[in-house]
């Protein structure tokens, strides 16, 4: 049991965190190193780099075209991502000592977001199950990810509502993780499940579609300015296969 606890609570978290960072860095490197042969702006596209960057930021933060096209999905995805952000920020209280004022301030909204999270996930899941074209393109990975996220959020809620764990011990453990001074919680109970699902999610993250939040910034159609008429664009592999 002791060995098992050491693996789950001390070794795997460090491995998963390292995997997450290295994996994401690798993905970004691949995107950056893949050439962009042609200018492919999509009307309406700003003509300057600054304008294009602003558009990209607006898109990433507010998904304006989705709000027009599919208000229901927009609501579901915005509430999911915002709730996730609040919940993650609330969790900072377990990794910072003393807890900063603003994290304490986010405590109540963070707890409320904990209830929004599974609701939004269920909305996303049911949408996937009722729409014919969506059901057709859905892969096992899509359901797997939704299941993982539901698992994390529901086990988190259960820890809060049903099977409370010793938060002082948990905090001693999490502080120990980030300061590399190992501490094992005595009786973690359901917290073991919560942590395990988080670890699977973190390890899987860089190899899945979940990187879309980063990949979006590398999409040529979304990030290029519409300046082909006055800016020379060079295709780095042009001429490699002349006849």
């Amino acid at each position, binding site marked *: 049991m002791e060995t098992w606890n050491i693996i789950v609570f001390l070794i795997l978290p460090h491995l998963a965190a390292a995997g997450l960072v290295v994996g994401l860095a*690798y*993905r970004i490197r*691949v*995107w950056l190193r*893949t*050439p*962009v*042969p*042609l*200018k*492919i*702006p*999509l*009307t*309406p*596209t700003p003509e300057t780099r600054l304008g294009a960057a602003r558009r990209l930021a607006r*898109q990433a933060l507010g*998904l304006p*075209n*989705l709000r027009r*096209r*599919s208000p229901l*999905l927009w609501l579901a*995805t915005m509430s999911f991502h915002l709730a996730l952000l609040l919940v993650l920020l609330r969790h900072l209280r377990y990794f910072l000592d003393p807890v900063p004022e603003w994290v304490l301030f986010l405590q109540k909204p963070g707890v409320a977001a904990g209830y929004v999270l599974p609701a939004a996930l269920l909305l996303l899941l049911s949408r*996937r199950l009722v*729409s*014919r*074209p*969506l*059901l*057709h*393109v*859905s*892969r096992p990975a*899509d359901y797997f990810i939704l299941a993982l996220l539901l698992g994390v959020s529901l086990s988190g809620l259960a820890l809060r509502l049903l099977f409370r764990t010793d938060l002082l011990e948990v905090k001693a453990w999490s502080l120990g993780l980030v300061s590399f001074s190992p501490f094992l919680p005595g009786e973690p109970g359901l917290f073991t499940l919560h942590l395990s699902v988080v670890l699977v999610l973190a390890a899987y993250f860089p*190899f899945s*579609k979940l*990187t*879309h939040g980063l*990949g*979006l910034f*590398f*999409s*040529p*159609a*979304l*990030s290029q300015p*519409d300046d*082909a*008429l*006055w800016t*020379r*664009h*060079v*295709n780095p*592999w*042009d001429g490699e*296969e002349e*006849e």
Partner: protein
Amino acid sequence: MNGAGGPQPARPEDLRTLGLPAALVPDWPGRFAEAFLRLLGRHRSLRTALDNCVRCGVCAGACPVYIETGDPGDSPAALVELARQARWRLVSFTGRPRRFRGPGRTVNDGLLARWFHYFHRCLLCRRCAGACPLGVDPAEVVLAAREVLAETGLGGRGAATLAAAARRTGNSLGLSAEAVRDACLDLEKELFQSTGVAVRAPVDEKGCEVLFLPPAADLAGNRAGLAGCALVFHAAGVSWTVSTRAADAANYGWFLGYRHLKRINRNVFLAVDQLRPRVVVWGETGHGWRVARNFSDTLSGPLAGMATLLTKRPLHICEFTEALLLKGAFKGRLDPAANDGWTVTYHDPCHAARGAGLLDPPRRLLRAAVNRFVEMPGNTIREMTACCGAGAGRLFESDRTIGGNLRARAFAASGADFLATTCDDCRAALPKVLAERPDLPARVGGVLELFGRALRPYLESLGLPETGPGEADDER
């Protein structure tokens, strides 16, 4: 999957002209893997599309093909997934080619057949890309897939037919230099008979102000569009010429791969080199204009490298005519009453509008040349435009058009009876699409056709000295 509207394979002689295998090569899985992995390493747009798509399905609601067929395999998300399936079979999750290809890890006949069918049904209109919240451009996936298919010997008929003709003759309809000259002579005769004025349509004249690249279709069949352009040049007093080396504004090589795109773009530069014009003006074309405006400089360098050129910037005939209009070149010469027989609406060609931002110039021309102009519903115009059903050479790919219904419905809702557009493929496809709706009596024509018709009363008055120039109002 092989019902009506199934794409047909290209003719072997066309593929040979293009230097592509004329039939499925015996070791196609190897060729397929090599081509697909090469493109994955060369196109960030392809890679981010496969990586970013979360299969939210919003694109399906934007896709004119899916809306019409209801086949879930036609949805853009399904196309991205189809490409991702092949990648999953060829590449491990770290991005390295798989060495061990167990069951379910090979690209087999079934997957190849699905690739050929679905990737050749897409119209490349990019309406889905505009809807995607994550910047996925499914058209980039389809273009790459078509290039892979062409490399394995499964080029699509539409693009291959047209691109091979452009390689042989400089235009996608395969018109000989003689046929181009005849067409222009015929046009001069027609215009003299109808207006009484010697409107010229010169061919291969050196040192003109404008080298004009008409869509080849304007030279081959219905010459109303080219007549409009000739009248514009004449009324504005601009010298112009057509080239027999590049008697085309289109570039179907794009739909077969970068190498073919580049090769056909070179035709324009050969013509510029020979004729030394001051500016190059592209005729009424959709995808050809996107190639000219966004790709040409990357493919072949700036036009200004040619000594006599005034601007390195390519111009679309609508932009060019709009500039003349704003300068007052047609003041007192436009009579919109000449078009009073119709209520006109404007169909945005996908690549011109969504791909190259050509939204307002054609509308300004129409408002100046037409009294009754109306718009179609807002979600089918400008950057939200709905494809005519002939995108990506689709008109020549299959026995019928698919994907034009959305446009037909929008047209019916507009109450117009003349559908003007500024793309030759749209102009060829829209009558077929509208023919399926006999309740819609409609004519399809070019923007310049209508603009030219509004110039006719002025030109006719030149032939008859007793009536003064028309007092038409060309202000908007």
